[in-house]
């Protein structure tokens, strides 16, 4: 019979009574001691002799990992893999990384603290814990404090446990048995849960829709826009002075021909620049079928057309540098090498579509 006993639970009026009872009960060494309280009781872990929770260390490590992850993530994306100049700032400006680093640190730390405490260390939700089915549990969720002596390796001296709890001043003492094996979650419960979830989504969606439809968009605080200031930027972005040569760039070579050799590395660079900048309008084969939807009104040139096959390299270069009608002047965003490399690549695409027998090795 005793192997079916989970433990003996005594109820106490307040935290002080509980704290006072622990040493006496502990001295008898009848079984594992555990306390159940409606809220955390200061000093209880110490009295029960619980070892310090490893949670703090876990949170610190994960928080630091969060900082590092966010930093490396942004640094690699923004300044190594795909450098993007935003607002005229250096792509590897650490300042811009800090908010994300902070947020990810908090995120990692908070999830470690919350989930680590609940799932990993406390193994919650423990829905079939024997104590939950006891009468004492109902009291604990109200205003009582419970101390339980729990069976260790299946054996417990129930009578002695009851006696010592009474002696320690328990209001009532209850013997708690392991519950019968729990039945599986019923189909009805699952259905009800899904229905409740669907209903919540529908309500939230309808509310959101109503809010967006019924209430006008409020203008944000505008005092920083209207206050007096030095209007240094009223002219918008200024074009470079005519004849400007950027540092580290070779001057425009015009019709002199492509200065780059047609090597694998150059074509690879050209492919990268083309995929990132031209493909969206001119299509992967440069035949003027854009990836853009019809909403993009202009008609990109079909670079496979006869006209463009007979273009010189310099003419393609010119189109990149200066654009044409709806084609933007993209050249200033590239290095000199990138411009010529993409010219090579366009030539390669053209040749691939107009291959001749002599091209075979």
């Amino acid at each position: 019979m005793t192997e079916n006993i989970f433990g003996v639970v005594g109820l106490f009026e307040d935290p002080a009574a509980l704290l006072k009872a622990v040493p006496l009960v502990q001295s008898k060494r009848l079984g594992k001691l555990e306390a159940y309280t409606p809220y955390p009781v200061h000093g209880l872990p110490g009295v029960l002799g619980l070892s310090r929770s490893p949670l703090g260390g876990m949170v610190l490590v994960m928080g630091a990992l969060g900082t590092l992850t966010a930093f490396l993530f942004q640094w690699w994306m923004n300044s190594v893999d795909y450098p993007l100049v935003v607002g005229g700032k250096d792509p590897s400006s650490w300042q811009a990384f800090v908010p994300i680093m902070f947020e990810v640190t908090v995120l990692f730390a908070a999830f470690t603290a919350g989930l680590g405490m609940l799932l990993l260390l406390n193994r919650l939700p423990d829905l079939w814990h024997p104590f939950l089915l006891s009468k004492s549990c109902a009291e604990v969720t109200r205003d009582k404090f419970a101390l339980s002596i729990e069976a260790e390796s299946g054996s417990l001296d129930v009578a002695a446990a009851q006696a010592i709890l009474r002696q320690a001043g328990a209001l009532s003492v209850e013997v708690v048995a392991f519950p019968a094996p729990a039945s599986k979650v019923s189909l009805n419960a699952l259905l009800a849960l899904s229905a409740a979830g669907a209903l919540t989504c529908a309500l939230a969606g309808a509310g959101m829709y109503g809010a967006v439809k019924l209430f006008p968009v409020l203008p944000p605080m505008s005092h920083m826009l209207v206050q007096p200031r030095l209007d240094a930027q009223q002219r918008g972005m200024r074009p470079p002075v005519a004849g400007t040569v950027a540092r580290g760039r070779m001057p425009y070579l015009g019709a002199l021909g492509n200065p780059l050799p047609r090597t694998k590395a150059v074509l690879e660079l050209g492919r990268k620049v083309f995929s990132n900048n031209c493909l969206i309008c001119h299509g992967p084969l440069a035949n003027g079928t854009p990836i853009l939807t019809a909403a993009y009104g202009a008609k990109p040139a079909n670079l496979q057309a006869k006209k463009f096959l007979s273009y010189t390299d310099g003419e393609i270069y010119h189109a990149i540098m200066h654009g044409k009608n709806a084609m933007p002047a993209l050249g200033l965003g590239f290095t000199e090498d990138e411009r010529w490399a993409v010219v090579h690549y366009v030539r390669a695409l053209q040749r691939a579509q107009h291959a001749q027998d002599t091209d075979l090795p």
Partner: protein
Amino acid sequence: MMPALTIQRFWANWLVWMLMLLSAGLGALFVVALEHLTDARWSVPLRRTAERVSGLVVPGSVAALVALFSLKVLYPWARPEAVTMPLVMAKAGWLNIPFFIARTLVCVALWLLSWKVLAGGSLKQDESRALVWTLRLRRFSPFFLVVMGLTTLVVAFDWISSLEPEWYSDVIGVYLFSGMFLAGLSAVVLAVSHLIEKGRLPQVRFDHLYNLGAWMFAFTVFWSYIAFAQYLLMWYADLPEEVYWYQQRSHGPWRGLCLVLALAHFVIPFFALVPQDAKGDLKRLKRVAVLVLAAHFLDLYWLVFPVLGDRPLFSWPELSFACFFVGLAVLWVRRSMSQGADMPVGDPFLEEGLAFKL
């Protein structure tokens, strides 16, 4: 050295130390008011010490009144050439000498009144043991929080950002507040540790100190958050009337000071206080408190001194000012420690506070 610069330098030093005194005093008074407001028990045994430190608002207020003589020396908007600066003229409704003096007088009056009520009321309760004081102070505390918020904002706008009147930052008030609260906490920690070492607070334990430490820990993060938020927005927007302020303060020799500030005001105190046991360890707390007070001084120095020129000035004048004001503050608090009980013996919650367990 040019005589004009000498005068400016004198007032710049004065301004920094006036802000130091007010920081420690108002910060400590804020600790007192928070205790009343939240009905906290743990801090009752430490409250008298905080009240004593808050007495620093008295010399701080005097220093603020004296500093009114610095207006024409330090503040461009108070000089005739202000008329030639369109951005400053647009702020003339706020930045003019009569209104400035009126604001300072109101602030000083509110600080002294709040100190009189909060610290004086507690002393009165020592004698009368009347419960009514507990209620009165609890009712007064929200009022002080409002006073603290508004006057810190006024001090930050008036005394700090109007040194360069074309610059402005909405968050500078919160920035100053976070530093002030930290400075107040640190001063309280130092005073408490002095009393403990003298054996005058025998029942104050790890558990009480832990909360002070936790607060310091939390607010080092808060200060850094605010400081960085202000910087990030100005750096990103890159508006000429905002960003030059940081330009001045983060280039040349000032760059080093920025780094020291980041270390001393955030990185070191943060990691020193991360471990659970550190927050209640008196020795550790004391060291961190000294560091944080020094960092707050550096912070104020960094806010004020760049208006004097491109190079940080730090020599005999600054050291003399430091000695004078630190000495004054220590003597002031020591004197109040020789009067009355070391704990609020009339407070009905003192017992409970002493028994406080984490």
